């Protein structure tokens, strides 16, 4: 029992740091499959955190949510994305508009900004400032990925990271939303990814590429 308690305490204490590390690695990543694996790791870290909370709060609902996260975000969605990448036979290059070092610098800046924003609130609301800052950082990072990466698949991954951030924020502030809402959100997410998968093939077949910056040619 001591070991599990210890693991739970450890998971809660340092998950924020591991989330930041995954964000920095995602900024530096050059291939789409690396980003997918990093997203899966992020979700796994969050699942570990939910498990720790579930163990501490002894709530069955929380166990169910953790199981949902693992099934949907750690396994299903990454698998679906891998299948899409393989079937597309497109290049794995991330097509970023900023160089690796610039992305990491911007990501570091976003992390510091999220801390700067969170610190005054965390003190008054007596929340874990690390996790809340991690949530805001995930949100900003997701938005940054969507803005700076030109491949359509990276837009999806950016959206997923953003959703991760919102989920973590909900987790930190209210210890989770009601189970029904959680299940609804996950279904939406899953459907969204499948629809995106379909659309990506349509886009590729119509335009011969997946570069969103070339959508500008649709202007009149």
């Amino acid at each position, binding site marked *: 029992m001591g070991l599990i308690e210890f693991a739970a305490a450890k998971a809660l204490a340092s998950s924020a*740091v591991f989330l930041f590390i995954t964000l*920095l690695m995602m900024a530096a990543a050059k291939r789409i499959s690396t980003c997918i694996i990093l997203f899966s790791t992020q979700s796994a870290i969050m699942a570990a955190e939910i498990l720790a909370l579930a163990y501490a709060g002894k709530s069955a609902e929380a166990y169910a949510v953790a199981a949902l996260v693992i099934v949907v975000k750690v396994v299903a969605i990454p698998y679906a994305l891998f299948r899409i990448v393989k079937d597309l036979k497109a290049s794995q290059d991330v097509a970023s508009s900023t*160089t690796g*070092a610039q992305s*990491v610098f911007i*990501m570091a800046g976003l992390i510091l900004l999220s801390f700067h924003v969170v610190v005054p609130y965390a003190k008054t609301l007596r929340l874990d400032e690390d996790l809340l800052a991690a949530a805001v950082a995930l949100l900003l990072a997701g938005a940054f990925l969507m803005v700076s990466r030109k491949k359509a698949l990276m837009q999806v991954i950016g959206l997923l990271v953003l959703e991760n951030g919102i989920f973590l924020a909900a987790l930190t502030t209210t210890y989770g939303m009601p189970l029904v809402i959680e299940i609804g959100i996950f279904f939406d997410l899953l459907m969204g990814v499948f629809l995106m998968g379909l659309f990506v093939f349509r886009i590729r077949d119509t335009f011969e590429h997946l570069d969103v910056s070339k959508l500008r040619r649709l202007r009149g």
Partner: protein
Amino acid sequence: MNLALDVIQALLLVAIAPLVRGVVARVKARIQNRRGASVWRPYADLLKLFRKQDLVPETASGLFRLAPVILFAVTVTAAAFIPVLHPSALFGAGGDFILLVYLLAIGRFFLMLGAMDGGSSFGGMGASREALVSALAEAPLLLALVSVAILAHTVTMSGIVLSTVRQNPLHLSAVYGFALGAMILVAIAETGRIPVDNPATHLELTMIHEAMVLEYSGPSLALIEWANAVKLALIMAMLVGVFAPWGMATSTSIAALVLAPLAFVFKLAVLAVAIAVIESSMAKLRMYLVPDFLGMASALAILAVAFTALMR
């Protein structure tokens, strides 16, 4: 007792440095499905080189033969800074990481000058590329060590290691994570490993360190190769000492003294395997992508320093 341990650990670093290179090369060979040379090969190489003549280009001045000597002397002195077996070192208490980094800079500066003294294009090319890498690698290295020193409230190497040893290994601050990331990237650049430089290449397009030592032969080359190996061992020992020093002898009991070298050898072996795996799984970066690589190290180091202020 302490003084004896200090001297022994410095000599240990210098003595096993070629073995570390041999192990890395052997593991790399195995990963690449080759048999690879024996792990003791670098010692045989050094012995062979020491017995040969020193070939000196006719345009070279006295600096050409002086540079390897200075490089070797400075690197061995730097090796006496790092706590290996116990959290103190020969120069560990008075010497700090700033002095350590700049001592290594002396060696590098004289090696660059020696390279240019040969009067060939290779020397200048190697020196110019080395200047690029070192100019961009020094700032993240010092910033990462500064962040760790701020947490330890001291600048001496032994003080930093002591402060890490005293902490609970599973409750390390985020600063250590970022500093470790920055230092791994910088260590790859400073020791000239893939993806920054290929230590086993002889194509001028891909050489950085090899180009600088192209004109050297005989005992001078042996001194340079040994100094390079000591630098690799030194940086690995520094990574181990600053970020994972548990296992060092904090008391003078027999059990601690027996455990310390075993723990150190184990950690070095893990690092050597990690280096070999990284070298075999990545391609060498194009030279103008190296600043990008080091820029990532700088970002991580800046983040580490910013977090020391945030986490207070």
